[in-house]
């Protein structure tokens, strides 16, 4: 794709195809780097989603999947800390979604993202019974995790979260781990810890920061992590480190399956505890009221949010890249970086990522490694190294 081809016109609109539902607006722990509470507007929301909002949301979901004849509509239950909503509400929600599936034929896979502290046998039963997949936030070993993920009393949460992660694995519940990168520590410490826990699906996410901040460099960490991913999957593809597989996928010309990597529109729809509908929740990194809209599930169908100015602005920002990005050879693979990382008070989202130099170094390193592992296999069985093959094009 050429730089001139970028922009909204390249991506035709489609129905909302995934919902992020904030069932709790508060959290039971106090992580130092949380984007959610950077926006004081979250305190204006009800602590938990009530029955009236839930009924209306379920009605809107059913209307939406029926009107657009969707094959599936994944829903992620989120917060704050979503388990504060309670296991009975989770059971009720899952049963209601199953009923919608029965009536409409639309699958509604449910996932939850949790800090894991509250997980006990009842929760495990709930996840297992309803096939709810679980993403648990765990920043690797305790000496890294407990730096940032603390209780309101200042104690580390690692012991409780690791215990929950191991119980999920032991029950064979579909679990992935979400860690935030701390580049002061080697990636080997994360990889070894997750291997010891029996966790094969995880992400080590780039720390959130805006262009107005000066976060430490991350390229060395992620280049090291890529090496570890190569080692872990050398005999068979066993370990999925999401940011690595996303970047490799994007470099191979595919659409990355997640929003942090690649050139694609961000079309997320977030439903708050009061039924209001907002764009991408992480855009709260831009500060107070940055995602506030006048839309809600009582007065509007889900897809109407596509016409809401702030939702449109976020979508457009995700595909209208800064000039430097449009001329970059990694534009399609990178997509300008994760949208919140492009924000500045001066230019809004019209910036390369605050991690631009790091991302470039990471893609450049991966590209070189990939070229060494790819070949064209001719019909007769002859192999031509991709580097040699490209030399002839």
């Amino acid at each position, binding site marked *: 794709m050429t730089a001139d081809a970028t922009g909204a016109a390249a991506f035709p609109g489609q129905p909302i195809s*995934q919902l992020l539902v904030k069932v709790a607006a508060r959290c039971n722990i106090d992580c130092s780097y949380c984007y959610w509470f950077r926006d004081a507007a979250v305190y204006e929301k009800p602590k938990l989603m009530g029955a009236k909002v839930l009924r209306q949301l379920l009605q809107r979901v059913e209307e939406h999947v029926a009107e657009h004849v969707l094959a599936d509509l*994944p829903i992620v239950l989120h917060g704050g800390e979503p388990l504060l909503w309670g296991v009975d509400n989770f059971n009720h929600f899952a049963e209601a979604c199953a009923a919608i599936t029965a009536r409409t034929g639309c699958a509604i*896979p449910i*996932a939850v*993202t949790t800090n894991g502290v509250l997980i006990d046998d009842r929760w495990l039963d709930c996840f297992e019974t309803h096939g709810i*997949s679980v993403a648990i936030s765990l920043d690797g070993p305790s000496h890294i995790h407990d730096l940032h993920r603390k209780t309101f009393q200042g104690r580390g949460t690692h012991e409780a979260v690791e215990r929950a992660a191991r119980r999920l694995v032991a029950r064979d519940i579909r679990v992935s781990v*979400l860690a935030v990168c701390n580049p002061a520590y080697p990636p080997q410490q994360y990889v070894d810890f997750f291997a010891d826990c029996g966790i094969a699906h995880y992400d080590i996410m780039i720390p959130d920061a805006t262009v107005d901040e000066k976060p430490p460099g991350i390229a060395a960490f992620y280049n090291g992590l890529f090496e570890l991913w190569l080692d872990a999957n050398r005999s068979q593809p066993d370990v999925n480190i999401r940011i690595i597989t996303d970047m490799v996928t994007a470099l191979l010309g595919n659409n990355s*399956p997640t929003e942090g990597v690649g050139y*694609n529109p961000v079309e997320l729809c977030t439903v708050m505890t009061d039924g209001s509908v907002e764009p991408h929740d992480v855009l709260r990194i831009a500060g107070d009221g940055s995602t506030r809209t006048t839309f809600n599930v009582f007065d509007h169908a889900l897809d109407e949010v596509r016409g809401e100015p702030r939702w449109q602005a976020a979508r457009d920002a995700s595909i209208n890249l800064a000039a430097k990005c449009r001329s970059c050879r990694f534009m399609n693979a990178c997509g300008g970086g994760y949208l919140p990382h492009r924000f500045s008070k001066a230019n809004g989202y019209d910036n390369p990522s605050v991690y631009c130099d790091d991302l470039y170094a990471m893609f450049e390193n991966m590209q070189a490694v990939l070229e060494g592992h790819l070949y064209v296999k001719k019909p007769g069985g002859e192999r031509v190294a991709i580097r040699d093959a490209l030399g002839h*094009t």
Partner: protein
Amino acid sequence: MSILTLKVFAGLLQLHGPGATIQSDHPGIDALLPDLRAQSGDKNTTSTQSNQNASDTVASEEFLSDKPLATEVYFRRGFVRGPGYGGAFRRGYHGGYGGFRRGFARGY
């Protein structure tokens, strides 16, 4: 060196004739190549499996033109499609591991 893209791959396969495939000697990388085939199929590019289980992506005019390749919303989802997606609920390399999008996967 050209950057790897579907367009470059398609050009290579066209150059090397029918039945040529792109493969990797690294299982982890090779496991990500089938998505190339799947998406190629989505874009009206002929895609079939050879008896050697290798890719057989044939370049289409769409790939070889300068037209932007519009991305399906589907691929932006945090749920990764694969065997067991939304249902089987057991571990495996691929599958619908939940809450798994960048950003909202955080359990803050």
